[in-house]
C-alpha cells in the first residue's frame, strides 16, 4: 500500500486532471476508431471530428459480417491465439520452473531465450517458410500457433521464472518429503500459487499473438489467415475502405478487451506478484 501524506484537495484535483488529460490522449484515437465504424463514408473525414453527432449506421458491421471473410478469420485468430497461449504457457512454465528450481546454467539459458525474442521475425521468415512448406504446414491451422512460440515462449519463461522465484522453496521441500513426485509438487503445490501470474502472462501472450501481422502474412494464404491480415486487406490499391476497416478493427479489439476485463484483478495482482521481488 502506498502510504502518502494527506495531499491538499487542489493537488489531488490537479493530479486527477493530469490523469484524465493523459487518458484522453490515449483513448481518443480508439474512440474515433469505434465511432467511425458507425459512420457513413462521408462523415469519417469531416472536421471538426464528429464523435457522436452523426447519423449512425450499422451498415459497416453488416457488410463486414455478411460479405467478407472476417468472421471466419476471427475464428482463426481465436484458435491461433488460444492454442498458442496454451502451448506457450505449458512449455514456458515448465522451462521456467526448471530454470528457477534446478539451477541448470540458468543465466545463460535465460539469456538465450531472450535472444530468441530479439531475433527479428522477418529474418526467420524465409527459411522457416521453406521448412514449413516441406512439412506441408503452410496455411494450416497449426503453423501460426507454432511460429508464434518464437515470441511468446521467451516472454512466458521470463515472466514465469520471476513468479516461481517468489514461491518459497520450503513449501516444495516439505511436499517432497511427504513422498510426492516432482510432477505432483508442480501441479498441486506450485501451480495454484502462481495462478495469477499464469493468467497475466496468458493475457499478454494472447494479445501479442492476436495482433501479430508479419509472420501471419508469410505463413498463411487463405485457410488459416488471421484478423490483422483481413483488416489490412481493406487498404486497397486505390483507397482505404475506412468503413469496413474501422468496423472490423472495432470487432478485433473486443476479445482482448473482454479477456483483460475478465481477468482485470488477476492482471494487476499477477504482474505484481511476478515482477517485483525483494
Amino acid at each position: 500500500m502506498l502510504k502518502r501524506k494527506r495531499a491538499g484537495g487542489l493537488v489531488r484535483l490537479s493530479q486527477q486532471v493530469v490523469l484524465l488529460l493523459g487518458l484522453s490522449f490515449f483513448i481518443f484515437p480508439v474512440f474515433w476508431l469505434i465511432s467511425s465504424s458507425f459512420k457513413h463514408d462521408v462523415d469519417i473525414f469531416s472536421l471538426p471530428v464528429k464523435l457522436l453527432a452523426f447519423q449512425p449506421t450499422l451498415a459497416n458491421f453488416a457488410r463486414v459480417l455478411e460479405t467478407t471473410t472476417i468472421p471466419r478469420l476471427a475464428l482463426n485468430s481465436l484458435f491461433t491465439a488460444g492454442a498458442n497461449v496454451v502451448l506457450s504457457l505449458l512449455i514456458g512454465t515448465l522451462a521456467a520452473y526448471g530454470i528457477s528450481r534446478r539451477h541448470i546454467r540458468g543465466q545463460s539459458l535465460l539469456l538465450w531465450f531472450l535472444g530468441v525474442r530479439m531475433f527479428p521475425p522477418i529474418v526467420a521468415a524465409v527459411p522457416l517458410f521453406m521448412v514449413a512448406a516441406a512439412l506441408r504446414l503452410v496455411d494450416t491451422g497449426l503453423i501460426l500457433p507454432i511460429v508464434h512460440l518464437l515470441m511468446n515462449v521467451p516472454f512466458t519463461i521470463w515472466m514465469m521464472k520471476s513468479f516461481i522465484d517468489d514461491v518459497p522453496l520450503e513449501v516444495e521441500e516439505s511436499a517432497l518429503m511427504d513422498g510426492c513426485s516432482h510432477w505432483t509438487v508442480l501441479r498441486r503445490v506450485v501451480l495454484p500459487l502462481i495462478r495469477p501470474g499464469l493468467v497475466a502472462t496468458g493475457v499478454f501472450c494472447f494479445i501479442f499473438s492476436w495482433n501479430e501481422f508479419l509472420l501471419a502474412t508469410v505463413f498463411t494464404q487463405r485457410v488459416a489467415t488471421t484478423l490483422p491480415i483481413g483488416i489490412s486487406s481493406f487498404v486497397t490499391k486505390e483507397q482505404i475502405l475506412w468503413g469496413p476497416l474501422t468496423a472490423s478493427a472495432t470487432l478485433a479489439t473486443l476479445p482482448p478487451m473482454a479477456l483483460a476485463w475478465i481477468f482485470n484483478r488477476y492482471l494487476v495482482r499477477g504482474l505484481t506478484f511476478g515482477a517485483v521481488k525483494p
Partner: protein
Amino acid sequence: MLRKLVGLLILLAPGPGFAAGQQEKIAVADRPIVYGGWLRSWSGVEIVLSTHLGSNSDAYKQMCLDFERITGARVTVLEESWTDLLGKHLSSFAARNGAYDLVTFFYGWFGHYVEGGLLQNLKQWFAGQQLADPHYAMEDFIPAVLEVYGRYKAGFYKDPDALWAVPYKFDVYTAQYRADLFESAGIIGPDGRARPPATWKELLADARILADRFPDLTPVVMPLAVDDPMVSTYLPVICSYGGAKPNPWYDAHLYPRFQKEPGVLAIRMLKQLMPFMPPDVLNYDYDRVNILMAQGKAAYALNWNAHLPVLLDPSKSKIAGTVRFDHTPGGVEGRPQGLGGWSIGLSSDSRNPEAAFQLLQFLTGRKRAVELALKGGSVARFSVVNDQEVVKRYPYYPLLVEGAKDAVARGSDRSWTEIQRIIGVELNKILLGADERQVLLETARKVFDAAQEAGYDPAKSGPRP
C-alpha cells in the same frame, strides 16, 4: 559441410507432385464444351487467383462467379494487400507450394516473375486449339499497353515473341482539376471554360494564381511519398523535359541516364512546385492525394486513373460534379504520359493450368470487357474506349488511349524494385533541399552498382558515371 546440409534440407522439400497426385486428371478433350464454343466443363477443378483488393476486384469477382456457374469449377479469389503480393508469390514458388494458378502483378515486377520462372509463356496456349477463345481479340488491346504488360525484353530472356501476361488493370497517370475553382480564378481558355495547364510551367503559373485566390486550399497535390509514388510522379516530368522514351531511367544494359540535363530540369520543376503543395506532401501516396481531392481541399492533382471512380462517386466525393480530367502536363519535348498497371499471368506451378488458362481468357477477353469497365474496372481495349456508355460514365477513358500513344514507363527488369527505391529516396532528398545535380549523379552511381550486382552489365554502355 554447411552448404551441403542446407542444400540437402532444401532438396528434401517435396515437389508439387506429392499433393497434386490426389486429384484425378481428366483429359481436356474429354471435357465437354459448355459455353461459347470454347469454354469447357471444369467440374471438380479448383482454380486459385491471387490478386489485390482494388477498383477492379468486385467486377472480377463477379465474373469468377459466372465462370463457376458456367463451368462447374471452383474459383478462389485471394485478395491481399498489394504490397505483400510479390513476396508471397516468390516465396510460395520457391517452396514449390503450388498455391496459385493465376497471379496478378505490377509490370515493374516483371523481371522477378519471368527470370524467376514463375510464369508460363502464353503464346503456345493461345496458339492451341483445344482451349483458346476464338473471339479473344488480342488485337483489340492497345498495342503499346500489351507490349509493356505482356512482353519482357530486359535481362536474360530475349524472346521478343513470348507473351508472359495480358493486361489486368490498365493505369495511366492523369491530371484532375476542379473546373469551378479554375473558372473562378480566371484560368480559362478562349471558350471561357476552365483551362487545365498544358505544360509544367503553366501549372506553376496556375498554382500561383490559385494560391492567391484560394489561400485556404491546396493548389496542387501529387503523390510524392518515397518509392513508388515519387518515381511515378517524376516519370512524366523527366520525359517531357527530354528524358529518353519510353524508359528515361536507363538503357538496354541498365546504364543510368536519368542524371542528365532532363532529369535535373524535371526535379527542379517539382522543387519549384513544392511550396504550392501540402507541407507533408512527401508522405502523400495515391490514396492520400485522392482523399484530399475528394474532400474538396485541392484544386489540381495527379493520380492513376484507377483511383478516379472514387472522385466521381458522390457518396465518397464532394467534387463529383466539378472534377475534370486531363493529361499530365508536358514540356519542351511533348506531353508523354506515364504508364502503370497490372498484368495477369499463368503460374508455372499451377495444378490446373488448362482450367486456369480458360479463366484467364474469360476475365480478360473482349466479350466482357465493356461490362468490366462499367463496373469500375480499367480495361486497355479499344472496344471499351469506343463504347459510348463507358465514356459517358467515366469521361476520362479517351484520355487513356490518347495517353497510351506516347506512353513512358518504369523499368521492368529484376533490379527495378531496388532501383525504384534508390531513386525514390534520393529524389525525396532533393525535394527536402539537397542539391539536385550532385545527388542525381550519386544516385546514378548507386543504380549502376545495383544493376551490376543483380547480374546485368551496365558497363557495356559506358564507365561508372
